[in-house]
């Protein structure tokens, strides 16, 4: 075996170890979710399920109990959807417009403004919990999905602005000048020239925002009411409900359901992300 093969072997072993490290918990979750109560009690965490027991999935989705409420994860799942989809779209669009202005239509003080927006990226969100709940109260949005959408748009705007602003800075100014001379205005340049060039950063931002918002627990637990809890809070409450028997298979199925949308978004949008990168024709 020569040195090159040896190096390759080294690389693959490291990758395999890493893959195992990340996939092992997923395996345990999946395997456990299909096991029946009896097999779980036998205690072997890594063994394959002997039965394909789908009951725990059905339970987790629609009938598992949180306290006295036995509707499963379903209502929380739809709460999360109703919160994440508008919040992701609005915060991404907002960031794109901010980035477009801050990179291509600079005005006096725009760099300073961008500096302030950057603070938002580094700000610990615990700091804003109290003032934010007060603001939501004033707006009449306390304990509602709409309130959560607003909070996530505000919290995400700094990050999305940073993404788009830095991406757009690399687009030559001459392109905007050419479009101006061709007769296109501010918005026309944005959606005819700039947005079509933004596929990669758009995908990055969408994935980033969806993952953040869907997985958020802090805002969910602080600002939601009884009918607007997102799935992260729902999952936590369900798993923490104490009953005589701990239904590990149901908890595992519920956790996978809660994590499924973010994985799905990555699988679907990840493709476009790579496609956008390779098709990028910004360079002259």
């Amino acid at each position: 075996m020569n040195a090159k093969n040896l190096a390759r072997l080294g690389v693959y072993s490291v990758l395999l170890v890493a893959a195992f490290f990340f996939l092992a918990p997923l395996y345990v979750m999946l395997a456990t979710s299909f096991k029946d109560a009896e097999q779980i009690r036998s205690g072997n965490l890594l063994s394959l399920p002997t039965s394909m027991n789908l009951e725990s999935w059905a339970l987790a989705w629609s009938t598992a109990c949180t306290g006295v409420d036995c509707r499963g994860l379903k209502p929380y799942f739809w709460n999360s959807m109703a919160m994440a989809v508008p919040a992701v779209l609005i915060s991404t669009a907002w960031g794109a417009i901010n980035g477009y202005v801050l990179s291509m239509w600079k005005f006096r003080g725009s760099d300073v403004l961008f500096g302030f927006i950057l603070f938002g990226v580094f700000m610990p969100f615990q700091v804003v919990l109290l003032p934010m709940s007060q603001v939501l109260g004033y707006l009449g949005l306390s304990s509602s999905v709409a309130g959560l959408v607003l909070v996530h748009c505000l919290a995400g705007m700094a990050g999305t602005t940073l993404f788009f602003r830095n991406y757009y800075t690399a687009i030559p100014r001459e392109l905007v000048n050419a479009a101006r001379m061709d007769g296109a205005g501010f918005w026309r340049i944005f959606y005819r020239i700039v947005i079509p060039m933004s596929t990669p950063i758009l995908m990055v931002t969408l994935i980033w925002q969806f993952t953040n918002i869907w997985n958020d627990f802090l805002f969910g637990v602080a600002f939601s009411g009884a009918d607007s809890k997102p799935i992260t809070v729902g999952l936590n409450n369900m798993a923490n409900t104490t009953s005589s028997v701990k239904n590990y298979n149901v908890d595992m199925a519920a956790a996978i359901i809660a994590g499924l949308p973010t994985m799905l978004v990555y699988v679907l949008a990840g493709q476009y992300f790579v496609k956008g990168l390779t098709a990028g024709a910004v360079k002259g």
Partner: protein
Amino acid sequence: MAASLHIAGIRKVYGKGDKAVEVLKKIEIDVAPGEFLILVGPSGCGKSTLLNIIAGLEDPTEGELKIGGKNVIGVAPAQRDIAMVFQSYALYPTMSVADNIGFALEMRKVPPEVRKQRIDQVAEMLQIKHLLDRRPAQLSGGQRQRVAMGRALARDPQLFLFDEPLSNLDAKLRVEMRAEIKRLHHLSGITSVYVTHDQIEAMTLGSRIAVMKDGILQQIGTPDEIYRRPANTYVAGFIGSPTMNFIAGEAYFAGAEAAFRFEGGVLQLPCPQAGRITLGQRPEHIHLDAGAPWRGEVILVEPTGADTFVVVKTGVGLITVRTVPSAQVAVGDNVGMSVSGNHNNWFDSQSGLRVG
């Protein structure tokens, strides 16, 4: 339709107070309809700023700007009826070549049939018909340049602006596209302003050349005027390659014939005035002359094919002489030089301004 361009008293100042930098100082240029004006100068001379002001991408601090007799200060770029070719071409990367050419027409609400007709016509003129469906990324540098020109031509504007359009091309393509631009200007007859730092482009393309330096218009004139009667030592040195020789000396009126004395030589030349003065001589007007009293040592021989340039070390510095390739001259030779014809450029030794 060709329009005139009137630039009067244009100033541009960046910054305020102590940090203020004046990049354009009272520029006055009048361009007649159909003219091809070249703005030439070293980087930082303000030529691109002036072009951006004409385009409306920047506003002047003060001054007057008229296109086709109409004041355009404060008018948006799109409303000035101008087309511009940029150094980086600035083609829209996500649009096809046809859409790139037709974009301005689309913005002006030209109906699709007319637009298509116009795109085809322009593509025909530029021989890029087979490229219409491609994306800019799939084109070579020269093809992109053609598309950028097509985009400007499609509009049939009152005024063409070129911002160093050839500087990203290799030498051979540059010569080709230079000829192409000249041909297109001839065909369209549209008034053009062309910014470059390349003096060959300036000489070959321009019907008039404006030489700029430090925000000041040094001289404006036809290529012939600029080359033969440069207004000052800066213009004389900037235009022409190899550069003009400058010989600092003193003029005497000795009898009927005047004489120009300098370190290491005397030339019997008609001088415009007595006293300290600088003589400018282009390399083609100095000759190797075996018997001449003005002598020096050859330190470099540069054959270019058609001509050979010989650099001679003399008492007044290095002198470049153009000679024929067949000339028998080698490094280290002691050669004599003489000056022929009436191609003498005299400059004030203090101010550098042309005398006589």
